[in-house]
């Protein structure tokens, strides 16, 4: 029965205005105990949040709580070496770990009125503003990829994705974008 032709509407260009790929930044994985966290807040110039799954931003630097002893520090690339040297200097007395992971992952910004809709296609978390407020961040899954998800605005999410998973995450989001009304 191959004699039937399927009628399909003309393809429409997919609106990709929801996607932004920011320039590379410095990323540092910081781990340490409470005293080190306090010292790191001073060294980094951003109070490292002690509330679970919250991010803090001062100027161009942000600290994301990823675990009780673990933070992702984000800053402009040009400040990377100075920050590392500052930690060596200021945290000498506090056992900690600071590892440069600037190249381990890249960022994606998903924004606009359909941002939550797009992310709900692969992320099992409740992204309602009442459950996932602005400033919340967490490691989670997007389909089969681990991501770090950070809500930077009502309609804006910052995703941190490991390099080799970026193509997969972007392709999935783009496929879901086809479902959006033109």
């Amino acid at each position, binding site marked *: 029965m191959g004699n039937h032709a399927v009628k399909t509407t003309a393809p429409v260009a997919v609106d990709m205005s929801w996607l932004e790929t920011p320039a590379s930044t410095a990323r540092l994985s910081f781990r340490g105990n409470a005293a080190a966290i306090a010292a790191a807040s001073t060294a980094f110039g951003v109070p490292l949040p002690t509330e679970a799954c919250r991010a803090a931003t001062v100027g161009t630097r942000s600290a994301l709580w990823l675990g009780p002893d673990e933070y992702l520090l984000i800053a402009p690339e040009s400040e990377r070496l100075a920050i590392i040297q500052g930690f060596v200097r200021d945290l000498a007395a506090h056992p900690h770990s600071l590892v440069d992971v600037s190249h381990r992952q890249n960022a994606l910004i998903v924004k606009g009125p359909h941002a939550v809709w797009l992310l709900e296609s692969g992320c099992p978390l409740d992204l309602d503003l009442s459950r996932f407020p602005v400033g919340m961040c967490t490691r989670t899954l997007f*389909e089969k990829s681990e991501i770090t998800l950070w809500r930077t605005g009502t309609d804006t999410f910052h995703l941190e994705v490991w390099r080799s998973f970026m193509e997969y995450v972007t392709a999935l989001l783009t496929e879901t974008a086809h479902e959006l009304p033109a």
Partner: protein
Amino acid sequence: MSTFRTTKGGRVDRAHPLQFTFDGKAYVGFAGDTLASALLANGVHLMGRSFKYHRPRGIVGAGSEEPNALITVIRDAARRTPNLRATQIELYDGLVAESQNRWPSLQFDAGAVAGWLSPLLPAGFYNKTFMWPRAAWHALYEPNIRAAAGLGIAPSLPDPDHYAQRFAHCDVLVVGSGPAGLAAAKTAAASGARVILCDEQPAFGGSLLDDRNATVNGQAASAWMADTLAALAKNPRVRLLSRTTAFGYFPHNLIGLSERITDHLAELPSGMPRERLWQVRAREVVIAAGAIERPLVFPGNDRPGVLLASAARTYANRYGVLVGRRAVLVTGCDAGYEAALDLMAGGAHIELIADVRPPGYVAGPAEKAARAAGLRVEQQSTVLGTQGTLRVSGVKIASVDASGQISRGRSYDCDVVLMSGGYTPSVHLHSQSRGKLVFDDSLGAFIPGKPAEHSHSAGAANGVQGLTALLRDGATAGANAAAAAGFTASAIMHTGVALDGTMAGVPGVLSQPTVLPPAKAFVDFQNDVTTRDLALAQREGFESVEHIKRYTTTGMATDQGKTSNLNALAFIAEQSNRRIPEVGLTTFRMPYTPTTFGIFAGHARGDLFDPVRKTPSHDWTVARGGVFEDVGMWKRTRYFPQAGEDMKAAMDRECRAVRHAVGMFDASTLGKIEVVGKDAATFLNRFYINNWSTLGVGRSRYGILLRDDGFVYDDGVIARLAEDRFHVTTTTGGAARVFAMMEDYLQTEWTELSVWITSTTEQWSVVAVQGPRSREVLQTLVSDLDISAEAMPHMSVANGTIAGAPMMLFRVSFSGELGFEVNVPARHGTAVWEAIYNAGKPFGIAPYGTEAMHVLRAEKGYIIVGQDTDGTMTPDDAAVAWAIGKTKPDFIGKRALERPAMKRLDRKQLVGLLTVDPQTVLEEGAQVVATAGQTVPMTMIGHITSSYYSAALKRSIALGVVAGGRALVGQTLYVPMPGRDIAVVVTSPVFYDPKGERING
């Protein structure tokens, strides 16, 4: 055009006619029709042939409960969907539909011969009839039974559509949008709760869509419904999902919804998925799934034109279609009378209403209305049979007197027989969620008992009757659900006015002069199960309903017995003098209605089946025709063929380049973990078998990791970058599990240690530069670091710059040659790879892949964890016991290694195996035996783990594990293969440069 369409009324759009074909014949319907209503409007009742006896079958229902009218819808060669219910297929212009299970045509079906053979096909016939001769089962009986079985033809081409999935969360999920569901959603939404309202039908409203005269709060029900839906649609906290079936109730209030997006459209919208899976995590669920009318069981009850009274109402009131012009209603339920009134209002003649209830019942409102309308009612009736071939033409009604005596009966001419056996609440989701069911004697059906999850059954699904009561029950459930979800809610009450016929009925089989009448009385239409089959099963000793179900297949068709289960239970109960609840109930299983595989696959197909992880050299390799292999999610280059080369030629050349000049290999996929803290060395001492305290800064060492059972789990080179900082590498496949194991020990066992771990696998791009000229190549690129043999000996590590990128350089070798591994931050990876290649050209550099890498390491006897080990090998078995730090007090697995069994001399040990014929390459996985000529079962003493042809040695080599193998060096063993035993000599596993001089070049 159609002869059975009413002149007005219904919710179809008469201004929009739609063309469609059924079995090649052209018809016209209206927008808003289903295939079923459009065919009925054209006077077509015959829509399929039954599964086993190929009996002509017509429409029974009007919704998802339809057991008979299974249809194939065809859009093109690949989009061919079988077993769709005609009652749920929404008409679109150009729809092509075909009936199933018939040949050569629906009207004349050769398979109907099965009906004449039916005495040979009783319940469980395949267990009895085809027992002899035994050999014929596989050759003859089973293939033929399989060919005859099954409904519809599955499409043979890949599904060209795509399917989407999404997650959703809500406070209250309302399943079903009849009066109870709408009232629940309205109340819950008013409390501020996040609400999802779903309904399997294209329009919201449920039973309100089928009622001509109902009002709510004095307003026409349709107007109230429209107002309510408009208000819900405006509420941003409410999501309305039509064409969406709640098919499964999973633990912790996770509900699976299947949303059909394009099946009803004439034109497929570009880019849209065909269906969408919603995984809804709901705090509370309101199950307002309604109730399904039961057929009556009497001889000939499956003839086309015999259908449910409620379906006749739906067709008349929703679609403006009369299912017949001359109707006999057979009813055991007051609500059944409403169909007669609606058909009469549409212009049909009601020949007779035969009420089959036993004497003594109280007449309900619908019966009273029917009598007031002048319709003829015969009480204490039964049905002795029906007439007609492809369409019912008459029905024989008899009366039952007080003593149970049945009259001879009289035939009535008719073109349709409506039947109503009472209503069965749709308790499927409640039961799926492990909620218990209780039998309601007044209703004659099971209703939901105490819920097991956070769910609230409401409305007809809860056994409630009457419009006002349905609205009240729904509102109450909505309020309770919202309150349980933490909202302040008060039920918004409504007053409904409708005829309100009662739902109680008479489950089971109508009285007959003999227990088993000659004509078949069907209980399960879709699986062709008759009263005879159920009686036979009981005669043969099946008592449990679960056994009877499986023996007769009643309730096991794709409709899962939506219309048949209670009748079967009632019949079994009556036959065995038990009450229905004593017979028990079979399990309600998901999905509620058949669900496509597509929604479960979702995006996970083709290129998006899994993440495809690519290394920095990927595009460069693609451009040069490199061949890849999958290693976990990674694409790794297998070999780099040059013009005219096959795999063997390419890997031989790549191996020669590494042995004689220089090769480069992308090792970026290796797992990398940075271990930092003042206790880093202590941690690694406990974690790996080696001694790390003695490792100096700027030096590295090969480490082995065991599980706590003492068996090799992972390996890798570990470098000390600073007193308190180590760079650990793991196998490609082991990266995630080694990291998780470290974190586990740090968080649970060794919390006192001041040490932290960070994954750096993807921070670093790694190029292995291996071969006698590797240093020369790197010296052209590195100017700020002395990499001479003296300054940078084997197993050292240093920082420098390469091609403008910061570099961490390891002097390390997995080839046995002088070698380095260049680590650069990953965004520099591609540029550095190209720089090394260009710098290496004058030295004859060859990029090499995993095949060559495997040969090179096997020539040196270097193991690959997971290939040469299998989770049962100790360090000694794997010939790496030298790595154990003997002076350490403890490490993971140390205690297990002390067990006597771990020290036995006959454990399988890693050895080299050289074939006597140097050109024979053994098969990996082949077994090893001690002597030639053994017969099965042989005494197997080992097996081959790695086997290659070595270009360097100009012969084959193999690694294997052999019981007590190291004591057998020099002896000849055998590898039995089909037709021959291959002689092999046991050797050391190190085949090439056994003194290890080349590595220090």
